[in-house]
């Protein structure tokens, strides 16, 4: 049938083009995706690299409260005379860190529980579904307020942990639905026929098939966690120590920046930073969708 003679030895044919190459090209081809990537990289880079170059000393200056933008203070000053630009540049770290960490936790819990529930069904499935019902019904803000009052949400890591542990159920259900359909595919049956072991079948054969879906949901989870965190700061449920975008909005609100024309920069700067970062993430998912679903880009 094949014309290739068995004896003809060919040098190990060019290994399939490194996949990263194709990924990069797809990423760059979609303009909005590229713009998203640039935004995300720029803002993350700014937040994490700025402390190396910018002096984080931002003194209170009672003489210069509520200054408008000027040569000295590009974005003006806040209610206590601190430079706004410095606060914006330095205030992203916590938000981004908590956003990503919370998303990792959410996703980890959702993927593991969702695929186990779908694969094994039965009692485990119904128990886990009931658990999602419970977690979804508890109002997150109230829970956070209570936990905050009792334990103190002192570190960003605890905040991330808490956010992660209350946001997984929705994602868990959609992962479960995906696994329910994937596990009926013949390649899963083939793996079962070879007795490959359930854990291997779930996490090596099935879950990687959802890689694109998981990654896109990861990014959406990051945006959600960031908004949730900023919301906590604005509501004053998280400790208002230091300066970050959430705390800035909180202070702008409580000190009435919204009523002062000079204070507009103070309230708009963190809002813009957050909005741009979120926009970047969402646009990034566009390219990622194309990468993981080639039919979208060629259609």
């Amino acid at each position, binding site marked *: *049938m*094949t014309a*290739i*003679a*068995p004896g*003809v*030895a*060919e040098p*190990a*044919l060019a*290994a*399939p083009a490194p996949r990263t190459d194709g990924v990069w090209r797809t990423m760059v081809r979609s303009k909005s995706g590229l713009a998203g990537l640039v935004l995300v990289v720029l803002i993350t880079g700014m937040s994490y690299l700025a402390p190396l170059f910018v002096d984080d000393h931002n003194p209170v200056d009672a003489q210069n409260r509520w200054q408008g933008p000027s040569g000295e203070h590009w974005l003006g000053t806040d209610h206590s005379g601190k430079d706004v630009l410095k606060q914006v540049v330095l205030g992203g770290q916590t938000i981004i860190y908590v956003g990503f960490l919370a998303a990792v936790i959410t996703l980890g819990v959702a993927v593991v529980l969702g695929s186990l529930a779908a694969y094994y069904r039965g009692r485990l499935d119904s128990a886990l579904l009931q658990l999602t019902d419970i977690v979804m019904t508890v109002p997150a803000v109230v829970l956070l307020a209570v936990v905050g009052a009792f334990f103190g949400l002192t570190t960003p890591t605890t905040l991330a942990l808490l956010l992660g542990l209350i946001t997984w159920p929705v994602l868990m259900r959609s992962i479960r639905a995906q696994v329910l359909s994937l596990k009926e*595919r*013949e*390649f899963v*049956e*083939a*793996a079962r*026929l*070879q*007795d*490959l*072991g359930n854990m*291997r079948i779930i996490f*090596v*054969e099935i879950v*990687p*098939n959802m*890689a694109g879906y998981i990654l896109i949901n990861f990014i959406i989870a990051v945006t959600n966690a960031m908004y949730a965190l900023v919301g906590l700061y604005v509501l004053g449920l998280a400790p208002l120590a230091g300066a970050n975008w959430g705390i800035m909005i909180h202070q702008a609100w409580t000190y009435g920046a919204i009523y002062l024309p000079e204070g507009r920069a103070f309230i708009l700067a963190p809002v813009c930073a957050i909005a741009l970062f979120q926009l970047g993430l969402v646009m990034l998912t566009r390219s990622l969708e194309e990468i993981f679903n080639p039919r979208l880009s060629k259609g």
Partner: protein
Amino acid sequence: MTGEPLLSLKHVSQTFASKRGDLPAVRDVTLSVARGDVLCLVGESGCGKTTTARMAAGLAKPTAGTVEFEGADINRMDRERHRAYRKAVQFIHQDPYASLNPIRTVFATLSAPLRRHGLAKNRDEAWEQASDLLRRVELTPPANYLAKYPHQLSGGQRQRVAVARALALNPRLIIADEATSMLDVSIRVGVLRMLTRLREELDVGFVFITHDLAIARYFGAGGRIAVMYLGEVVEYGATADVIDDPRHPYTRALLSAVPDVDPGPEGRRDPGLRGVDIPSLTALPSGCTFHPRCPLFVPGTCDTAAPALRAVPGAGQEVACHVVAGKAGDPDAVGQPAGSGA
């Protein structure tokens, strides 16, 4: 060809529950395969051949009867024996586009069972053995294929990879469910020839499911054939006997429906069926399920008692037919109540 049966189905039935009532997909089928044996299951779609194969492969539990591997019921085995059964009996799916994991390379697909069952200790060994497997299914040079993903392969190549995967655990029996029906005709022959060669070289038994009698004749040469109709085996015997001298009226009709390249004056006989519609599984005809279509229909006998498989006088095969197995035309034999049936 003969010997201790490796895998035997004993009076297995499978009934699916549906909204319109129970669907008896397979009824009281008894078959067995010995090592190196070939058994072809043929029949039109919906006759239960795939369900039978799935029960034999342990993918579905029979609702009645037992599937036995080396004499032990596979659904009641301890872990150790079940593992041995899994290794010994492999399955090839019909659709090579669905049966290979799209995100795993050929090497990953082939090395997983090798590593899992300790046939390969490390990656190099697995690579070596996977290469051997690919050579065996004529995908050479193997290095060209090992790093490829299923979507980079043609249908025939994928099916060969699926065969290689089935061979990975040195099985003693391979159940192939319409393994060639999704392939182009030109490629089908190559795959069939390869499977035949494997059968001879490796002494692997085959349960080969097909709707194509020409393929059954080619692949099942020297083996046996079971013709199924509406969930039952209606004719069972050596391939040569069944194909060259079919006795059951259904088998005859099936064979006469095979298009002939050069139809002679007798090339296309009219099978003389009384009806062309296949009865629904939810409302099976009484007695012999073939009687509404059967040209040999004897009123009063065929529509009351279900026939059991019985040896036909003067022929090698067994047939489930009152008229044929009961010496055609002998009213006494015809009138005998036949077996238990469904």
